[in-house]
């Protein structure tokens, strides 16, 4: 769902796993995103570049905060950080 949300935007979208480190991934490639090894509780950074970059960040943030299509665990609130 993350990749599909990113894929619906015109901007180039890059994502990094801040918790594990490592290289940036292309947010529109599932293989690339899976390679980040992001699991629950990790912190990630998303960077968008293009004419809809702000809307891109807003929609990805909303998708993550709503659980990416999976039920949210109330014991692990999503931590919003800039």
């Amino acid at each position, binding site marked *: 769902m993350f*990749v*599909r949300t*990113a*894929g*619906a935007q015109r901007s180039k979208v890059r994502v990094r796993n801040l918790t594990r480190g490592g290289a940036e991934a292309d947010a*529109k*490639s*599932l*293989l690339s995103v*899976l*390679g980040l*090894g992001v699991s629950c509780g990790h912190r990630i950074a998303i960077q968008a570049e293009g004419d809809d970059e702000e809307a891109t960040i807003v929609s990805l943030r909303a998708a993550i905060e709503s659980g990416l299509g999976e039920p949210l665990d109330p014991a692990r609130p999503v931590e919003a950080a800039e």
Partner: protein
Amino acid sequence: MSEHDTPLVAMVFVSHSAKLAEGAAELATQMAGPEVRLIAVGGAPDGSLGTDPDRIASAIRSADSGGGVLVICDLGSAILATESAIETLDGDLAARVRLSGGPFVEGAVIASVQASIGQSLDDVLHAAEEARDLDKGVGR
């Protein structure tokens, strides 16, 4: 999801086992959403383990909506059966069919997601092939 100018690439999963093909399609639908056409073709004409070029050819015909079709095969003769199926298709359709020998489940899921965001047939094929390198974080 967004409007697409061109039809999405469709997917056909060919396995010796009907259950395996259907399972791959079920998982890929869950990940890629309902917009991508996914068709599972598994088993021989009598329902035993095997492959059936005629059913593969009709699956490709019904899957295509103009954006092309990526066929992902499980093992050995599934490739041969798919190649024979492609030979029976009209030239226009055959020209927009690609065959992946990448890993069945990983390729099915990853390529279907890339198809769902409107990527081209060759990009979707590339994603299926690249799925060989997916690192699951264990065993390496």
